[in-house]
């Protein structure tokens, strides 16, 4: 998780990463590639962003869905990768990329083997070997240098942990515990085959390696913390220049050492990718709507609410002049309010909060139909098999709860709780829209007699504050999306003490045990049922109040394709995008 590269746009949502999966793409079908034109090679694609820089460029540190999709599609090859397709089920299936196939599991899912393709090279022409993948993977362990990235390597690889919970291996820089790592990740004599030995069965480990955290890094070029300044490409492009900040640009040019024959995954249509940093969101919208000059082959990540009425007929259909280049799709994220169970231990009070909340007003404030559907848990329908309705608003709380909340029932619950009506504080990352949402929270809880105090936090500091148990308050605004199409990247992250996003401070022994069991369940169908039950359980315990299954709107220039939201990451399908030649 991490904040999205959209900066302010999604600041209110906050954290997230991810990718979505399986099953119905909810709502409208996506439009087909721009104007039906044939993809051709050449041209420049422009990526307009409000952000002043990428959160991370270092492969082991990237953890934002859009960035994973962008860099995976351009400069970092991974052992496996998600299929390019607008169809959710297809897009969340994996194909081989750097590896010859999608990996072989043995030992009950505790050992995974991948063979690296011939002809795959870095930008200096040297071949990508098993050692490079292993070295890249090992960097994740240097938690004092390589910060911000996913830590699945640490939690999954068979390396003992120390008393304080940290790994006995401290990464390649200190070399402490190197032998432990070298045992966990081994290379065949020819350097072609890499073997990962895991501490427990991970049936979906070949999904985990789609993350660039498992991408190869040549040891000789590693500059530690500063590796992101000059990373070594293994993909069809390489970074020619990168200047952060307003007015800054990142220019990706073709990597002439990349051999198309070794890569049947990436199409590599454009000659150049240009990322323009620090543009005003209004400017981006305006430029894309006008779509003149270079902007015809430009893309961006979101839309300001004021433009929605201009571009769309309804939340699912664009106006004719924007047909084919505007999308409105469910994104991978679930928006919710985490309730800090350490500070609100009384279940009745938590229920009262959930019951009193005016989710209708919150959704309207976020954009109504455009903002998405009401959520009933932290697993979204586009997660496929892992989703099942929890019945949260129908029966879970003892009655059917209207979308606008039921203050009377909430009052009753408070009365039953045996406690006085509580005073709680609501933490949220500040923005004008979030301020209004806070006003809704304050008002609707107030109707049930709960005193809520808004606590706006500067967006850039938000997670720094709310992850600190000393500073976090009772109610915490959040959003989360899965890291790959398995709720193993949701439920454990959100609801167990070892999870990385447990804003609720939830620590339920029974629950934890059930999670551990689900994690190693090899039967995907059984596992799905387990996640469904855990999702329902968490809702029943009101660990969070889910508010919305997010939907997002995006627009591109007139001469760019294909135009669909790639369900794998809820992103543009960078690896197969092209400029339409006139």
């Amino acid at each position, binding site marked *: 998780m991490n904040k999205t590269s959209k900066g302010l746009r999604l600041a209110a949502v906050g954290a997230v990463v991810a990718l979505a999966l399986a099953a119905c793409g909810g709502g409208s079908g996506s439009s087909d590639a721009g104007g039906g034109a044939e993809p051709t090679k050449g041209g420049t694609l422009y990526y307009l962003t409000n952000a002043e820089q990428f959160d991370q460029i270092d492969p082991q540190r990237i953890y934002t869905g859009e960035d994973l999709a962008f860099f995976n599609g351009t400069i970092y090859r991974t052992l496996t990768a998600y299929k390019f397709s607008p169809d959710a089920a297809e897009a969340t299936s994996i194909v081989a990329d750097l590896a010859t196939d999608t990996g072989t599991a043995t030992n009950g899912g505790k050992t995974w083997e991948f063979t690296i393709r011939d002809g795959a090279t870095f930008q200096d022409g040297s071949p990508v070997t098993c050692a490079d993948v292993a070295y890249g993977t090992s960097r994740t362990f240097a938690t004092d240098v390589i910060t911000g990235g996913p830590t699945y390597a640490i939690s999954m690889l068979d390396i003992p942990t120390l008393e304080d919970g940290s790994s006995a291996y401290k990464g390649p820089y200190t070399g402490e515990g190197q032998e432990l790592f070298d045992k966990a990740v081994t290379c065949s004599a020819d350097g072609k085959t890499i073997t990962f030995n895991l501490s427990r069965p991970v049936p979906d480990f070949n999904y985990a390696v789609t993350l660039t955290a498992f991408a190869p890094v040549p040891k000789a070029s590693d500059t530690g913390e500063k590796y*992101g300044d000059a990373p070594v490409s293994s993909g069809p492009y390489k970074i020619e220049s990168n200047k952060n900040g307003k007015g800054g640009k990142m220019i990706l040019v073709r990597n002439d050492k990349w051999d198309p024959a070794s890569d049947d995954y990436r199409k590599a249509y454009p000659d150049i990718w240009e990322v323009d940093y*620090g543009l005003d969101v209004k400017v981006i919208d305006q430029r894309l709507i006008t779509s003149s000059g270079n902007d015809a082959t430009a893309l961006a990540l979101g839309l300001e609410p004021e433009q929605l009425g201009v571009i769309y007929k309804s939340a699912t259909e664009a106006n004719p002049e924007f047909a084919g280049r505007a999308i409105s799709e469910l994104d991978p994220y679930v928006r919710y309010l985490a309730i800090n169970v350490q500070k609100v231990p009384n279940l009745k009070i938590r229920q009262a909060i959930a019951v009193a909340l005016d989710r209708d007003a919150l959704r309207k404030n976020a954009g109504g139909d455009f903002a998405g559907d009401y959520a009933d848990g932290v697993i979204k329908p586009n997660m496929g098999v892992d989703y099942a309705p929890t019945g949260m608003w129908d029966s879970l709380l003892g009655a059917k709860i209207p979308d606008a909340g039921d203050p009377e029932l909430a009052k009753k619950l408070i009365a039953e709780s045996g406690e006085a009506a509580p005073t709680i504080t609501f933490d949220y990352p500040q923005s004008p829209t979030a301020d209004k949402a806070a006003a809704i929270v304050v008002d609707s809880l107030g109707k049930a007699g709960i005193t809520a105090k808004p606590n706006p936090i500067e967006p850039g*500091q938000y997670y720094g504050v709310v992850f600190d148990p000393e500073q976090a308050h009772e109610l915490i605004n959040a959003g989360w999306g899965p890291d790959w199409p398995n709720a193993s990247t949701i439920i454990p992250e959100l609801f167990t003490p070892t999870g990385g996003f447990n804003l609720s401070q939830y620590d339920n022994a029974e629950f934890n045990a059930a999670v551990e069991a689900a994690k190693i369940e090899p039967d995907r169908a059984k596992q799905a049922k387990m996640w469904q039950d855990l999702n329902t359980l968490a809702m029943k315990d009101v660990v969070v109040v889910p508010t919305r299954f997010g939907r997002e709107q995006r627009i591109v220039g007139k001469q760019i394709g294909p135009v669909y939201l790639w369900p794998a990451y809820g992103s543009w399908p960078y690896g197969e995008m092209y400029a339409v030649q006139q």
Partner: protein
Amino acid sequence: MVILLLLLTLVVFILFSLLPADPARLTCGKGCTPAVLEANRHKLGLDLPVIQQYWEFMKGLFVGRIYAADSPDPVVCNAPCLGYSFKRGEEVLVLIKDRLPATIWLALGAFILWLAAGISVGVYAALRRGRWQDKTVMGISLAGYSLPSFFLGLMAIFFIVIRLQLLPYPSYVSPFENPIQFFQTMLLPWIVLAILYAAFYMRLTRNQMLEVLGEDYIRTARAKGLPERIVIRKHALRAGLTPIVTAAGLDLAGLLGGAIITESIFSLPGLGSLAVNSVNDADLPVIVGITLVTATFIIVANLIVDLLYAVIDPRVRLVS
């Protein structure tokens, strides 16, 4: 002056050491453990007492600084080291240098506009004191400095860019890269910023001129039979502009520290917007750096204005 600067850095340091968000925490990310946090804190030098941090900082200014010298991955920040932003992975000085051009262009352009408009209109009003021209100018001036700059800026965008589409959306480029786009982008910010100051300078100039025109030496100049033109330009203007030089120098220096509001409205990549972003990110080293640079500008400007004063006014020379 040096003492003032030293004092200033100390005050800035102490003030900002009060900030709540833990910068170490912010660079720690997911899977953050107390040990990592402690290591980060050590790397950033935050485990030291404030005064020692200050000492390290001052030392860094003169001899450079190495963060996390005892780790395998030290960060070198060469003198003059204004600090290092781990959030952005860049030396503060480099960040500031990157942002300075936009700020300087904005400040200089607006400065020229407002001085030209403010002084000429102010003199004009003074010469027509009490008549309708004077009253109109004063009215405009009052309206001008009563308009909050952010409202003015937003209105400019609404009318000029959105409704009339006379100019494209502002998008900063260096003047050396694309002069036309540069001017298109800077025009509104210049005007918006200049209006505020010009309104003030009109008044200042007018009142200064009126004061000077009432001086005995102006009567003397007239009694000598000098043409009115010379009386105004040579005798009145020079004396009347002296205080304006002071004000202008200080105002320009203040702007060189970043026009926070104008920059954020027109999304210019200047020091002001860097400052606001850094506040949002609790990027302490950058905030401290910008504060110091800005304050230094102002203090140095004070000095320059004093020197300039001596050039303009011979009486000052003798005293000093």
